[in-house]
């Protein structure tokens, strides 16, 4: 994927921050100063003070002479970093990787590869960032480019457009001043002395010459801006995965060894999950074997849990699938899916048993782990008459039925998956069969109830309706029979058996 970076430059970070907190200072020129070698040196300047000619790096006393009524505020070391960290954490909404610009300590660098389309393209993305930050009270300049160095340069010194197209950054850098390359002061002075006022004037020079004159650091900065050297951003928030590693001194090949390894890792993982209120939903155990192969087993749970004994039991079912061969030297336990765990209240009396019973949930986990979760079914009533669709698969263990089970119409205790055709002798028009032959056995019908007509759900499928009869034969067997279609209709009618009553 093409990598893209955004640089956000806060032009007057401290002044903007002060104005947000003390709006009454809007009419007053002010500076931030800190003691340095027994005098107060100015570190940051407000826009009003800057108009009067005050610059950072001046002595506070000199500045007061230039600009009467100047307010000198105390600066605290490390304040810009704290401010940037707060802003960076806020900016995580735009990209997961946000880093503080360590060179100038006045901006942020964002790795936005694959993020911009969420705001409708890069233009909309930058506009959103600028307008939101402006709304907060910060004046910012932003730029987007293929490398952090180029984005940094364009955001501070670019004059044409903040949107540098893919691969267009070397060209965009040509007209900029050398300061755009994040260079140290002595190097900059040397460049100016030699008459290099723009990057284009030295970019095509041989690298060996540049190295001799300006040092290795200069080449690194140049390469980082051009993209020939990777620059690693240190994200503010590192997403810490739920992962445990257990390297083994001796390769492990016994079942006992693997069990000990799993327990050891679960102990650490569960402790961490418990402290964060999380529970495991999916767990992956990876074993790296000494012959270079990788073995992996996966478990899943029906409810988030951080119980060591339960998770261990689930892994125990899978140990057979681990082939250690010559031995496993590294175990990694991952929890790719975790959920908030519901903390059960301590109970003085044993709880009423039910579907949310812990032991039942654990049973389901074990069954799902050994046989597969697809074997577990739970049914809820569906508001439909067609027998095959009268029940609905529940999606979770605790899902409540939306309606009551209907009991007014007789339904067979055992329902055949698909109706079996039978041979029948019945009187027309709507009498139940006198007898029927099912699997070669003749059943003489003694008593019957019906018919109950069930129409097909025409919006789902086409076909004939069914006329159901509940019949009892001379042996006491009770059956659910139906005739599909009308006698003498266009379609051929056929009798079926569909179930057995208790």
């Amino acid at each position: 994927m093409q990598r893209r970076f955004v640089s956000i430059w806060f032009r007057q970070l401290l002044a903007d921050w002060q104005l947000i907190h003390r709006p009454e200072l809007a009419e007053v020129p002010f500076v931030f100063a800190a003691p340095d070698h027994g005098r107060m040196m100015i570190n940051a300047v407000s826009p009003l003070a800057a108009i009067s000619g005050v610059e950072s790096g001046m002595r506070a006393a000199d500045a007061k002479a230039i600009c009467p009524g100047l307010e000198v505020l105390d600066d605290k070391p490390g304040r810009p970093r704290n401010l940037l960290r707060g802003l960076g954490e806020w900016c995580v909404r735009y990209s997961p990787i946000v880093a503080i610009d360590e060179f100038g300590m006045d901006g942020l660098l964002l790795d936005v590869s694959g993020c911009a389309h969420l705001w409708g393209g890069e233009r909309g993305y930058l506009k959103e960032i600028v307008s939101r930050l402006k709304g907060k009270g910060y004046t910012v300049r932003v730029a987007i480019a293929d490398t952090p160095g180029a984005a940094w340069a364009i955001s501070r010194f670019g004059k044409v457009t903040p949107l540098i197209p893919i691969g267009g950054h070397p060209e965009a850098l040509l007209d900029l001043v050398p300061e755009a390359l994040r260079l140290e002061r002595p190097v900059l002075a040397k460049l100016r002395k030699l008459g290099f006022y723009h990057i284009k004037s030295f970019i095509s020079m041989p690298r060996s010459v540049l190295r001799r004159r300006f040092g290795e650091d200069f080449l690194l900065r140049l390469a980082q801006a051009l993209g020939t050297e990777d620059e690693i951003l240190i994200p503010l928030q590192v997403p810490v995965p739920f992962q445990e590693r257990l390297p083994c001194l001796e390769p492990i090949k016994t079942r006992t060894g693997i069990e000990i390894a799993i327990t050891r890792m679960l102990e650490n993982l569960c402790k961490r999950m418990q402290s964060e209120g999380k529970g495991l939903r999916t767990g992956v155990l990876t074993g790296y074997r000494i012959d270079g192969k990788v073995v992996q087993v996966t478990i899943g749970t029906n409810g988030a849990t951080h119980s060591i004994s339960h998770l261990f039991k689930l892994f125990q079912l899978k140990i057979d699938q681990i082939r250690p061969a010559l031995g496993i030297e590294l175990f990694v336990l991952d929890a790719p899916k975790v959920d908030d765990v519901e903390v059960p209240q301590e109970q003085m009396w044993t709880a009423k048993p039910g579907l949310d019973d812990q032991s039942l949930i654990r049973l389901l986990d074990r069954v799902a782990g050994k046989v597969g979760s697809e074997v577990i079914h739970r049914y809820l009533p569906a508001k439909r008459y067609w027998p095959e669709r009268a029940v609905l698969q529940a999606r979770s263990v605790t899902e409540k039925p939306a309606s009551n089970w209907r009991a007014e119409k007789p339904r067979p205790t055992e329902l055949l998956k698909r109706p079996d055709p039978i041979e029948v002798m019945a009187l027309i028009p709507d009498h139940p069969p006198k007898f029927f032959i099912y699997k070669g056995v003749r059943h003489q019908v003694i008593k019957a109830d019906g018919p109950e007509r069930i129409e097909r759900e025409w919006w789902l499928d086409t076909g004939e309706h069914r006329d159901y009869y509940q019949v009892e034969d001379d042996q006491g067997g009770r059956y659910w029979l139906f005739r599909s279609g009308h006698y003498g209709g266009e379609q051929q009618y056929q009798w079926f058996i569909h179930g057995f009553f208790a």
Partner: protein
Amino acid sequence: MLSFIEQIMDTKKEIFLKLQQDILLWQGFKPQATGKAERVGLGEIEQAFPGGVFPKRAIHEFITVLPEDAAASDGFIAGLLAILMQDGAACVWVSTSRRLFPASLSTFNVEAERIIFMDVKTEKDVLWITEEALKCEGLAAVVAELNNLSLIESRRLQLAVEESGVTGFILRKDASKAATTVATARWKISPMLTENEEGMPGLGFPRWRVDLLKVRNGNPGSWVMEWAGECFEEVKNVSKADDGSVWSEREDRQIG
């Protein structure tokens, strides 16, 4: 003189009762705590069990050969489940070829959403799940449809049941194979002709012949039971089925 004889009879009765209980204890039968001796609504049949109490901490085996028997057994078990699941507990139903229709269970006052069905492919899985489920104390009952059950396997299930107190029902399709199990009770439920009030057309309440083939420390027997809408009811005088075919020719018969 007469009162003296009565007195002797009474003491004899007491001695007999004491002896019976002692024998039960020696045979390893643990009487249930009196506080927990609840009825399951089987009436007379409960007297066949030791102490006159339906054993909940036990494996009950049902022999079902014909599909009609299976349906009858399902109905009978559902009637028992209604009582066992009264306190809101769930039930597990394990099978390789399940036909039970959840929507029909409301007839027996069972909330089908509290039954968890596990439809597996092999008998081995059925056994494994049954044993695990029987160890699970939060359940009311476990129903397993099994064809083969060896002595050793049934012993394992019995041990699990004794630990947890979950009632186990085993539906066995083949009666001939492996007849020796350690099940506490072996039942055979077969459907019987229903009967209606005099002159009423159509089918009556589901009626079964309940054969208790084997009871540990109890007395086997045979009864005729009916599911009378809300509860089991014993039918004392079973009349011979009349041959006349009756069909409910209701005037206001509704279609649909």
